[in-house]
């Protein structure tokens, strides 16, 4: 039983479980990739939750498009029409938020909450109306809310893949523009960048990802594809280009694993499974990522604290004092101290630490404007941080 499932999982993961499932898995991975890429800039622009309102606001559009399709006598569920409706009402929701924030005293959070819930409420009313009218093909509408990969036909999966690739490509092309928008919109505006239009473009890309994700992930959870991968990627790096790539990879991985899992467990809604996979990746990143993960940061802090304590102890010993307890034992372990006095090696380390501290002190008082960022002042070896001639100058100034 278990080996059979493992075998099946392996075949889906490696795209060998039939063309249809391969296409669905690849399409979902592409969706995750696009979500991670676009989401990176939403996160930095602090717009993560605006896209939540956007995705909830698509529901009335879908329902109205369905009603229009039924009135025109189109076959029950014409996907392009439904998605066009979704885009239209999603964008209307966005514009409503913008108008509320600009023209009234309401703050953005209130505008988001109001638009999200009222649009979704309207959607639910329309869905109940469609149910009452007993039109054909309405069964598919509910899958838009919680998502279903099984609902994805081959052609649709290819379309999703292509659109997702287009969204990722647009971000790659506009990388420079989006970067300045994300970090300093005021500067961008002063430099003559069309900030308002770039913002609109970013939200347009978010709308694109939302709409192509509706069927697979569902409109309640599609926002997770835009938020969770970039948030997880944030723990791995401080560089924007790396951040974008890592977010895209995490998104793609979530889509790929999530689609595989939900193919194995067809009873579970695909969207929830994909989001849980993304959540697991987030948790691992939050705890163990080497750059900003919880464990790495704690280790670095402990290391710094120990370094500091060690130096102070050495300077006390150099001045003729004594160090006892854990710290004394630690210095013995390092070979700096034997029977309460400094060894030759300890004396050398103590002198080096003393020199380092003295030079740092002088540098910090004489050149406060030149202090570099991301450096532990007074602890990091000054020769590694500052240029050679600067260190020499500091030494000469000390000697005179």
């Amino acid at each position, binding site marked *: 039983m278990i080996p059979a499932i493992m075998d099946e999982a392996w075949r889906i993961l490696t795209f060998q479980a039939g063309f249809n499932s391969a296409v669905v898995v690849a399409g979902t991975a592409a969706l995750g990739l696009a979500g991670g890429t676009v989401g990176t800039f939403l*996160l930095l622009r*602090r717009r*993560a*939750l605006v896209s*939540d309102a956007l995705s*909830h606001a698509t529901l009335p559009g879908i329902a109205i498009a369905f009603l229009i399709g039924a009135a025109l006598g189109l076959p029950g569920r014409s996907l392009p029409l439904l998605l066009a409706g979704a885009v239209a009402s999603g964008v209307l929701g966005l514009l409503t938020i913008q108008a*509320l924030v600009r*023209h*009234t*005293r*309401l*703050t953005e*959070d*209130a*505008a*988001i*909450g*109001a638009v*999200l*819930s*009222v*649009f*979704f*409420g*309207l*959607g*639910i*009313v329309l*869905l*109940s*109306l469609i*149910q*009452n009218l007993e039109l054909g093909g309405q069964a598919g509408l*509910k899958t838009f809310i*919680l998502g279903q990969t099984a609902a994805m036909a081959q052609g649709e999966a290819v379309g999703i893949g292509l659109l997702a690739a287009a969204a990722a490509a647009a971000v790659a092309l506009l990388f420079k523009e989006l970067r300045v928008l994300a970090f300093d919109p005021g500067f961008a505006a002063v430099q003559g960048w069309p900030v308002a239009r770039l913002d609109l473009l970013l939200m347009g890309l978010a709308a694109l990802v939302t709409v192509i994700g509706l069927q697979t992930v569902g409109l*309640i*959870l599609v*926002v*997770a594809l835009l*938020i*969770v991968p*970039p*948030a997880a990627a*944030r*723990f791995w790096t401080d560089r924007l280009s790396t951040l974008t790539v890592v977010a895209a990879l995490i998104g793609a991985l979530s889509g790929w694993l999530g689609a595989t899992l939900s193919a194995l467990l067809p*009873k*579970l*809604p695909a*969207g*929830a*499974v994909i*989001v*849980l996979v*993304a*959540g697991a990746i*987030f948790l691992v990143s*939050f705890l163990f990522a080497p750059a*900003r993960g*919880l464990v790495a*940061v704690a280790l670095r802090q402990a290391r710094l604290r120990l370094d500091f304590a060690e130096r102070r102890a050495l300077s006390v010993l150099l001045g003729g004092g004594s160090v006892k307890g854990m710290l004394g034992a630690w210095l013995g372990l390092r070979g700096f101290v034997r029977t309460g006095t400094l060894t030759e090696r300890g004396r050398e380390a103590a002198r080096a630490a003393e020199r380092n501290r003295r030079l740092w002190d002088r540098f910090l008082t004489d050149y406060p404007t030149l202090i570099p960022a991301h450096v532990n002042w007074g602890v990091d070896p000054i020769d590694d941080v500052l240029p050679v001639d600067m260190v020499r100058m500091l030494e000469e100034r000390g000697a005179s």
Partner: protein
Amino acid sequence: MTLTVQEFLQIDVPALLAAVLVCAACALVGNFLVLRRQGLMGDAVSHAVLPGIVAGFLVAGTRETLPMMLGALAAAALAGVLIEAIRRLGRLESGAAMGVVFTVMFAAGVVMIERAAASGVDLDADCVLYGQLETILWLAPTGWASLLDPAAWAAMPREVVTLGAVFALCLALVVLFYKELKITTFDPALASTLGIPAGLFHYGVVLLVATTAIAAFEAVGSILVIAMLIAPPASARLLTDRMAVQLVLSVALGVLAAVVGYGAAAFGPLWLGAEHSLNAAGMIAVAAGLILALAVLFGPTHGILGKRRAVGRLRTLVTTDAVAADGRRP
């Protein structure tokens, strides 16, 4: 299809009563979310409690309110702790931290529901989203006379009783701590210097919102909870500058939305000749949205038209002054 008095009393009165109580309670506590710029907290809480509700249901094995409520409260507290941990320790902005936590918890809840549904448990994702206002029945009354009968009132469905208790709790707390709530909302720093624990009130407000949302959840679904927490207080905010007036006004607007929305959903289609009613929770949210739209457009001082008129009046004043000054010039 005509409506009998008995049907009205048995089906519509309890549902309407539940809707009114939910809207009043949510609108009342929602004021503090709107004023503290924490509107999204309602969004986050109402999504994040889902796994707690399902867990409470699965552990107790019944649809009793208490275990579900305890589970939901635990989930809400967990969500709060996680959001704060990610924000502080992970140094992510609060919107992203909320987004991560509530989507993942909601996804976990959905998976738990589907697992439970697979094993034949009566719980589905729909009722969590849309609520079950229509299924609240009050079987006791037989006619108008029953309204005077205490025994009939005693048989009120437990959802309505719970909601009534929650509304009473909210009202009591807001009245009791009105001064403290006001000062911690508008100037937490001043509150701290006066010895009022602003942090405690911050968490108190969040906890009260969570309690209200959870109680309202079962009856009306998560979406209406968000609508009711935000839309009536936001409307009231556009109509007045005084906090006491805003509180009263928001509750009144919430009740209005409940009555209008429920009426439109339950009786509108019948009047138009249709067979079935529409989703009441959704319609109440729409009614609240319409009220907000009216406030945005026609609010006397803060509405868009009102502001435009004030600007126009100022312009006339300035021009006439200028003309008058011109006339005086030699």
